[in-house]
């Protein structure tokens, strides 16, 4: 059992000042703490459920809402077992507390497509435990046997038709011990889980009333802005603040880590002041970094011995002996997260406490960062999680929190730091650049018998948790290449770590975003080399992964695989499993005068039990758009140590007119829910690349695809 009363009391003690709450009754936002009648008693059997004697039922969400729907999906898990009335709930964002540590990540954090997966049992258990206690309270109150009591829509029903609202039982239930053994419902009896319920946060997101980090307002709030060296890793040498200090509305000018910060009464004044300050930089050796140099270094590194990430059989010997060996190199660029809400954070140091309002995916990290900077103990740092205007992994970092705390320390007021888009774009933690050398061997019948791949990429864990890099292998750099699902007897996956001056981070689907492109493109290359149907070859090689085989087959059928296509048209498929979910993409494309037109994409998903099909589809649509952007647009490049893309004019996002028709199928599966935010990203680029090959004979081995597809 995960319920821990001591943890829970810590939660209650720190739960003042919540910034976000949704109310299903009004489907709108309620800011600030609840109006609490003095005589309201609260039944709070665990950290996720709170029932007031006034019949207010609150479900607490301990994951960050960044668009993926946790403010709706997680309460569904609790409400299902609690037998709550879905139309009469309040949903609140959790404060920081150890009970909310995400077991998948070891910290209070949202990422790794883990929210529903890691909450499925704990939140249902929390709801069921509360229901059992309410039933027990009703039993003691009425003397009616347990077997004749029924919990339904927020009330306990007696055989005679009497109805006790949960609120009426709250005080009595609060006196009872929390049950140790809680039996959960069979999925057959779910009536909330599995329904395509509308999101609870939609209404406030259509009226402008939703509060993102950048919208936080506090009495006396000041605005902070920052500027860092355009050269990666550069430091601020000196600056002349005289002109800026004379400007009306400028409050403070002070250094932040690696750069300069200005605090002013409003955003525009702060930016104007920053522009008026001549800054001189210590560029350091980062000034020599360039995409060209990294590419050359990686190309050479790919020929060196890597650390062994996976070995089955003896790929090297098989390649030496094989009658046919196919070889190819793949390259995938740096990519920016570019959430539409730029990095921002509000901090206020007062009364020996550091209060933070942040659109963060990493509450523990934010708390530790602030504690480190202020010298305060962790329990004197209070993190309020706002809505996130996109995350995609960028908001797992703490640099923007550090800026807010650094600036807020210089004034008594709360300070909201807002990065400009240019700062956001040029100081991201990018998806690592990677270079892949792949060799495949075919036996005389055209069956793949060996696969050898060397992956060159920077390590994400080297700077974050060096112990996670084992025997030279960073698992976050090779995910999706190891655990090869294809039945090939001889496999070797090597990893060569090459860190660069470019900061790297977790980008939606992490390594799978590039390893799937290589795996699914190269298996297609092997099929064509062996004159075999790429779909049939995959099917044959997936004899031991029937989930992937099933989604692949369904996607191929839906796109019309096997039908003859007119010249210039082609179909492609790709299948990949990540974050526990098997995902297949099929693409139908046309190429006219070298221009790619995507006629249709089909995505078939097996993510186990689907908690909310409406939100699941939205996640897949969104992941496909995210993947299309990286396949068709970008990339992030470096020259003279400077990121060359500074705003959306030259780092373009996907536009509405570029969104193809997408058909999504969610396969039925009663297995516990798996990840959904990320797994639809990896198979998109290879499905398209394979379709491009089918249409044109052009094999694309680099992302993004060339602007003009020709045989040059």
């Amino acid at each position, binding site marked *: 059992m995960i319920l821990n009363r001591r943890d829970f009391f810590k939660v209650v003690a720190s739960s003042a000042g919540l910034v976000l709450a949704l109310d299903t009754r009004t489907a709108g936002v309620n800011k600030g703490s609840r109006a609490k009648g003095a005589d309201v008693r609260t039944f709070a059997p665990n950290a996720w459920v709170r029932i007031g004697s006034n019949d207010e039922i609150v479900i607490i969400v301990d994951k960050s*809402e*960044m*668009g*993926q*729907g946790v403010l709706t999906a997680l309460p569904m898990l609790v409400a299902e077992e609690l037998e709550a009335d879905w139309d009469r709930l309040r949903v609140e964002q959790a404060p920081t507390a150890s009970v909310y540590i995400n077991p998948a990540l070891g910290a209070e954090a949202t990422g790794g497509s883990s929210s529903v997966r890691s909450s499925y049992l704990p939140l249902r258990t929390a709801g069921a435990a509360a229901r059992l206690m309410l039933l027990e309270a009703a039993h003691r109150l009425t003397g009616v046997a347990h077997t004749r009591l029924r919990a339904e829509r927020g009330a306990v029903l007696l055989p005679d038709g009497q109805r006790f609202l949960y609120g009426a039982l709250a005080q009595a239930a609060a006196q009872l011990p929390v049950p140790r053994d809680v039996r959960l419902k069979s999925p057959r009896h779910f009536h909330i889980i599995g329904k395509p319920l*509308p*999101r609870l*946060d*939609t*209404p*406030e*997101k*259509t*009226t*402008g*009333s*939703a*509060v*993102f980090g*950048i*919208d936080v*307002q506090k009495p006396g709030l000041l*605005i902070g802005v920052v500027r860092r060296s355009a050269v990666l890793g550069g430091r601020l040498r000196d600056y002349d603040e005289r002109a800026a200090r004379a400007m009306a509305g400028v409050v403070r000018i002070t250094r932040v880590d690696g750069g300069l910060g200005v605090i002013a009464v*409003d*955003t*525009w004044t702060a930016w104007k002041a920053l522009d008026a300050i001549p800054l001189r930089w210590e560029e350091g050796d980062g000034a020599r970094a360039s995409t060209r140099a990294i590419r050359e270094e990686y190309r050479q590194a790919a020929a060196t011995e890597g650390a062994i990430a996976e070995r089955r059989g003896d790929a090297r010997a098989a390649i030496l002996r094989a009658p046919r060996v196919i070889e190819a190199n793949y390259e995938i660029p740096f990519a920016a997260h*570019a*959430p*539409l*809400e*730029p990095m921002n954070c509000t901090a206020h140091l007062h009364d020996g406490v550091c209060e933070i309002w942040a659109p963060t995916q990493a509450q523990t990290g934010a708390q530790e960062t602030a504690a480190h900077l202020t010298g305060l103990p962790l329990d004197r740092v209070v993190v309020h999680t706002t*809505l*996130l*205007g*996109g*995350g*995609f992994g960028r908001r797992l970092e703490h640099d923007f929190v550090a800026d807010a705390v650094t600036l807020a320390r210089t004034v008594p007021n709360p300070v909201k730091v*807002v990065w*400009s*888009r240019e700062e956001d774009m040029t100081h991201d933690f990018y998806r690592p650049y990677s270079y892949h050398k792949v060799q495949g061997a075919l036996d005389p019948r055209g069956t793949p018998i060996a696969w050898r791949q060397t992956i060159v990429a920077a390590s994400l864990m080297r700077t974050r948790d060096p112990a996670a890099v084992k025997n030279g292998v960073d698992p976050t750099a090779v995910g999706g290449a190891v655990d090869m699902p294809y039945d090939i007897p001889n496999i070797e996956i090597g990893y060569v770590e090459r860190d660069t001056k470019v900061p790297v981070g977790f980008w939606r689907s992490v390594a799978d975003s590039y390893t799937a492109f290589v795996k699914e493109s190269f298996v297609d290359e092997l099929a064509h080399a062996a004159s075999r149907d790429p779909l049939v070859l995959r099917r044959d090689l997936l004899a031991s992964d029937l989930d992937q085989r099933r989604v692949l087959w369904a996607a191929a059928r839906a796109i019309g695989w096997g039908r003859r296509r007119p010249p210039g048209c082609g179909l492609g498929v790709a299948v990949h499993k990540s974050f526990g979910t098997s995902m297949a993409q099929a693409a139908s494309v046309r190429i006219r005068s070298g221009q790619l037109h995507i006629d249709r994409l089909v995505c078939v998903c097996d993510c186990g039990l689907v908690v909310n099909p*409406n939100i699941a589809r*939205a*996640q897949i*649509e*969104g*992941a*496909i*758009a*995210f993947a299309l952007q990286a396949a068709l647009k970008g990339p992030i490049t470096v020259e003279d140590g400077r990121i060359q893309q500074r*705003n*959306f*004019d030259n780092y373009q*996002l*996907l*536009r*509405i*007119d570029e*969104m193809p028709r*997408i058909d999504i199928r969610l396969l039925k599966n009663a297995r516990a829910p798996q990840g959904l935010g990320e797994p639809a990203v990896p198979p998109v680029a290879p499905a398209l690349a394979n379709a491009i090959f089918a249409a044109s004979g052009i094999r694309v081995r680099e992302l993004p695809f060339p602007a003009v597809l020709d045989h040059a």
Partner: protein
Amino acid sequence: MRMVINGIDREVRSSPDTPLLWVIRDEWGLTGTKYGCGIGVCGACTVHLDAAPIRSCAVPIGSLAGRRVTTIEGLSPDGQHPVQKAWVAEDVPQCGYCQSGQIMSAAALLARRPHPTNRDIDTAMSGNLCRCGTYARIRRAIRRAGKDAHDPQPS
């Protein structure tokens, strides 16, 4: 100088070079209009100037004396503009950050062209970026709003 913001005549204190976006957000405290790029290419800051959608991050306030500006907060008194209703019906938003701008662009489109073609929608909406990829639902919601708004209604 003075401007009419969401039907209310207001004094503007910010300096004339201040982009309308920051007057809306910082001076008037209306935070539904978002900052995304500052150069008029992402559409998150879209508001109506008279009836036309504009990128408020790229328009200095000094050029707008006496003009009427409508933000997402002023689109309807109760969040029940046909476009807002359609957005709810299609459950469009994911993170939601770009959606004020999307809704303002869509409302301006429908005011001009009550039954837009797919091409009209793409043209009118291609300046509003959504990183979450809600485009398919945006298209559906606009078609729905066009239909709902022009069903016979008592006037």
